[in-house]
Each structure stands twice: as structure tokens, then as C-alpha cells.
């Protein structure tokens, strides 16, 4: 009897030890699940970035949940999405904020709760330490301004469409442009804050062209605004190249406009590679290999009609057959 008890006890201990080890293995083998939150998924910029997020998640074996706030004005919706993910116990969040100030309270909650967070491009102005991978909005604005000022030889009227006013990146791009242009007293800048949609761009540029038939250039925040601006210029009867258009990225048919001479230059960055890097940073933070604060900035470059065919697109374009 005593012998049986001893044998049973030893077996039970062995079983329990085995269970502990295998349970530990299950914990390690559990998939990492991250949430990617963008403010305006239909903007071709974020559509392209989605490709980057997906591919890097596939490569790292990470499960991705994608959330679109549906517009820069939908701050409450994005806040709700973030809170839902915290409730779900998500492993990490990549966030492109709808509003720099409006998302601060919920972002603070995320950081205080210890949920790994990477802010991607569209900043939330939290003072708590976090990981950031950002465009340099000031530099983007300056690049546009520098090109236009050079083309106009320091004298002319420019319409600036910086996009939605609540977005930190738009504010920075606006500042960069205006601060550069003010060094050239002959350059007059008209600013129109609009939603990032083609019909808003078209209607606004049409009206401004009527009031300012001597308009020399238009600088646009996003591909939809650029398309709208080009359409308005075409409709106004202006000759190709008589109004300089400088955009950002080469999505939504912009490449054709550049080939045809309606779009003169665009500020590029490797936004798909940026998305991939955001995923890598977040996974490292989840695994404890990276700690906030960290601020990474990506490069920007100007592409014009002359170098359209020759620049490296690997970090900024996705295969045509991918359409998700």
C-alpha cells in the first residue's frame, strides 16, 4: 500500500512537471496579435501602407487586425477602437492618429496600461514615452516650397492645400511650407484647409482660380487632393504646366498626370517600408527587445517628371495584383 502511494506520488509529480513545461511552451508559441489603426483607410497612402503592414506581419508570423477610423474627423470612432483593443488584451498597437490632441487621453491610457505602442506618421501629442516612426512634416513642406520657389524664381502666387487642420502632420507640412516661403517676399501663399478628398480639392481649386486667375502653383497634401487640383486646373482651361502642381506620393493615377505634364513634382517617402519598420519595432517592443522612448524618422525625396522613370520604387509601391 505504502509502495503504491509512493509510486503514485512520483508519477503525479512527473506529470505536473511535464504539464508546467508544456504550458510554458504553449505560452511562448501563442501568436502575437497586433492592431493597426489608420485614420483614413481609403487614402491611397494608407492603402499602400496596409500592404506593408500585412507583408511584414506575414513574415514575422504575427496576426494583424486592421482598423480604419473612416476619416480624420472620426476621432471618437478611433478612440473607441483603441479602447476595444485594450479590452481585448491586444499585444500591441500601431497608431496613425486622427487627431494629434484628441487622441492624447486614450494614448496615455494605452501607455500607462503597458500596452506596447508605435505611433506611425500621424502623431498623437502624448508626453509619455513611446515609440515613434515619423515623416518629417516640416521637411515635406519645405521640399514642396523649395521646388515651387525655384520654379517661380521667387515670385508668384501659391495655393497650399495642407489637408485636414486637426492632423499634426498637416500642421507641420503647412508650417514647413509657409516658413520656407516667407524668406521670399515675392511669394504669396493662400492656405485652404480641406478634407482629403478629390471633390473637396476640385471645388476649392476651382473657386480659388476664379478669385486668383494669376495663381502660379498649387501644393497638395495627399493624392486625392492632388487629383482634384489637377482636374480643376484642366477644367479651368489653363495650359499644361501654366499652374505648377506639387503633390505627395504617386498614387491614385498621379503618375499618369506627371507623365502628361499636369503634375510637375511630388514628395515621396518609402511609406511601405515605413509600415514594415513599424511592425518590426512593435514586435521587438512586445518581446522586450526595444523600450520607449524611441523616435525614428524616414527619408523624403522629391521626384519630378525628369526622374520619374529612374527612382527606386521598392519601398513605395505594391504589386498591381495585390488589392485588399
Amino acid at each position, binding site marked *: 500500500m505504502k509502495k503504491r502511494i509512493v509510486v503514485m506520488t512520483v508519477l503525479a509529480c512527473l506529470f505536473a512537471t511535464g504539464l508546467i513545461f508544456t504550458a510554458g511552451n504553449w505560452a511562448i508559441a501563442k501568436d502575437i496579435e497586433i492592431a493597426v489603426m489608420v485614420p483614413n483607410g481609403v487614402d*491611397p497612402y494608407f*492603402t499602400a501602407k496596409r500592404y506593408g503592414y500585412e507583408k511584414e506581419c506575414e513574415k514575422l508570423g504575427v496576426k494583424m487586425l486592421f482598423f480604419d477610423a473612416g476619416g480624420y474627423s472620426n476621432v471618437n470612432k478611433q478612440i473607441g477602437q483603441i479602447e476595444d483593443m485594450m479590452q481585448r488584451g491586444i499585444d500591441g498597437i500601431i497608431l496613425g492618429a486622427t487627431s494629434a490632441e484628441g487622441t492624447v487621453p486614450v494614448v496615455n491610457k494605452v501607455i500607462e496600461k503597458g500596452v506596447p505602442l508605435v505611433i506611425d506618421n500621424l502623431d498623437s501629442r502624448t508626453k509619455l514615452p513611446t515609440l515613434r516612426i515619423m515623416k518629417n512634416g516640416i521637411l515635406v513642406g519645405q521640399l514642396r516650397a523649395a521646388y515651387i520657389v525655384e520654379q517661380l524664381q521667387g515670385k508668384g502666387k501659391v495655393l497650399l492645400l495642407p489637408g485636414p*487642420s486637426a492632423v499634426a502632420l498637416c500642421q507641420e507640412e503647412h508650417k514647413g511650407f509657409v516658413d520656407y516661403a516667407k524668406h521670399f517676399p515675392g511669394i504669396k501663399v493662400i492656405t485652404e484647409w480641406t*478634407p482629403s478628398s478629390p471633390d473637396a480639392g476640385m471645388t476649392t481649386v*476651382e473657386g480659388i482660380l476664379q*478669385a486668383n*486667375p494669376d495663381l502660379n502653383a498649387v501644393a497638395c497634401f495627399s493624392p486625392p487632393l492632388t487629383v482634384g487640383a489637377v482636374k480643376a486646373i*484642366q477644367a479651368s482651361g489653363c495650359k499644361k504646366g501654366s499652374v505648377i502642381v506639387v503633390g505627395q506620393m504617386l498614387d*491614385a*493615377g498621379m503618375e499618369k498626370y506627371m507623365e502628361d505634364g499636369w503634375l510637375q513634382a511630388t514628395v515621396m517617402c518609402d511609406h511601405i517600408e515605413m509600415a514594415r519598420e513599424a511592425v518590426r519595432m512593435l514586435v521587438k517592443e512586445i518581446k522586450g527587445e526595444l523600450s520607449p522612448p524611441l523616435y525614428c524618422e524616414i527619408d523624403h525625396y522629391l521626384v519630378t517628371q525628369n526622374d520619374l522613370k529612374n527612382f527606386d520604387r521598392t519601398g513605395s509601391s505594391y504589386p498591381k495584383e495585390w488589392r485588399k
Partner: protein
Amino acid sequence: MNADNVVQEKVSFNIKFIERIDWEKYGLPMAFICMLIVFTLINPAFFSFRNMIQTTRQGAILFLVVSGQTFALLARGIDLSQGSVMGLASIAIISSIYTLGAYAGSIVGILMGGCCGLINGVLIAFLGIPPILATLGMLFIALGVELVYTGGVTLTNLSDIDQAHLFWFGGGMVGPIPTPVVFALIIGLLLYFLLKRTAFGREIYLFGSNAEATYMAGIPTKRIIVTVYTLSALLASLGAFFLTARLSMGFPHLGEGWLVLAIGGAVLGGNSVLGGKGGIWQALLGAMVISFLDNGLIVSGVSSFAREAVIGAVIIFACLASVIRGRS
């Protein structure tokens, strides 16, 4: 007769003249003309031929969407799905053009948008779901469908031939008149005839005034509801078609912001939110006022922030006036 008596007589004549004016009928057209004069005085470029052409082009598109909303309001309902239907129609049109060509693809895309209205009508008429809820649900369904289908991708890359054919509808001219204006006028006349000269049109007004009496009179009310919401979505899809044609791209959120303008335009023009009162002429007035107001503010150099506030204030004022008129 002394000078005081002459002045008194002139003042009382003026007051009687003002009282004799039918403000309900002529108030908004007079305000519209005053607005045009004011904007022209601020910046003469406002009244240039090119600006008028461009603004009427945009106004024609808005008129179609407002007309659709008008039908819903006349039937004492509302259609909250118009903005999403516009986005869905835009995507459907370009997607269909890829396989069917410009003309057939456009028709298929427009009809697909119209189907959303048919579903709305069936939900309201046969399942008894209130219009505000049914169309709110369709708002999200249409938005979801277009995003799932496209993944948020803007649809471009039309062939040169298709693009040329399509562009004529949105950006082309018929003589000196923009193409959308021509189509909007024809469609507007047909809708006017439908509402004012047919029995079905009278049924819509009767239903909007008193749904129960309409039912008790043996008029098929379900048919009215289904037709009204189908028309609303079809007209929104037509508006999306001309906008898509002009942009030569399918943009998933194309209708963003248009719902507010549609409701505001319909009410501003004189369509009652309480049903049974209004029409296509009111829709045209409302659409033109909003289009020219927006354009006038841009040309006058008013900032985009202030423009939003002005247009919002005008719409609120119009809604208030509509409610007060309805109560009196």
C-alpha cells in the same frame, strides 16, 4: 397735404407692398439673387462666365442628390444612406467599366446604387422599420461593402477610350452648357412631371401629409415607399456617376459630406421635414443656393473654417424655418 403726410403715405404703401409679397414663394429666390449681387460686388470674378459654368456644373450634381432626398422628405421620411450609396455607386461604376466598357458599365453601376434604395424601401414598407433606422443601417452596409470590395483602394487605370467617353458626362459640354446641367435639367423636368402631373405624384404628397388617410383610401402605400426610396438612391447614384465621370476615378468615400448638403439643400429650398410639402423646384433652389454660396465664399476669400460655419448656420436656419412653417 403736408410733407409729413406724404412720407407717412409712402411708408404705409411700402409696408403694404412688403406684406403683399408671398415670402414663402419668392423669399428664397430673392435671397438667392441678392446673394449673387453681394458676391459679385465683393469680387467681380464671381460672376464671370467660367465661374458660373463651373458652379452650375457642381450644382447640377448636388441637385440630383437633393432631388432624391426630396422624395424621401415628401413621403415624410429621410434617406441617410445617400452619401454611402454615392461611394458605392462610384466604385461599382468604375469596376463595371473595367469589364463592360464606359456606357454599359456606367448603367450597371448606377443601377447597383439604386438597388440599395430598393432594399431600403422594402425594409421600410414591408418590415415596418422606421426610415431613419433602415437608411442608417444601409449607410453602414453600403460603406462596408465598398470597403470590403476595394480594400479602400481608389480605382483608376481606365483605358484612354473609356476615360474619354466617361469624362464627357462629368466634365464635357453640350454647346455652352456643361453636360451634367443638361442631364440634370432633363431629369428634373421628368421628376417635376412625375410629382405634379401624375396620380402617383399626388399619392406621394398625400402619403406625406397623412399616411393613414392614404392607406384608408385604398392607395397602395407600400408601393409609394419602395418607389420613393429607390428613386432617392438612384438619383444619388446618378450624382455619383457625374462626379466619378469628372474625376475619372472610383473613390470609396466619394459621398462624404454630401448627405448633409443633400438634406440641407432639400430643406433650404422649401421641402418640409414634416412631409407632404415641397417639390423639385424647391430642390433646385436649395441646391443652387448651397452651390453658389459655397463658391461665393471661396471666391470672396472667406477661410475654409468660416465657410463651414456659414453653410451650417444657413442649413440650421432653413430647418428651423421649415419646422415653424409646418407648425403654423
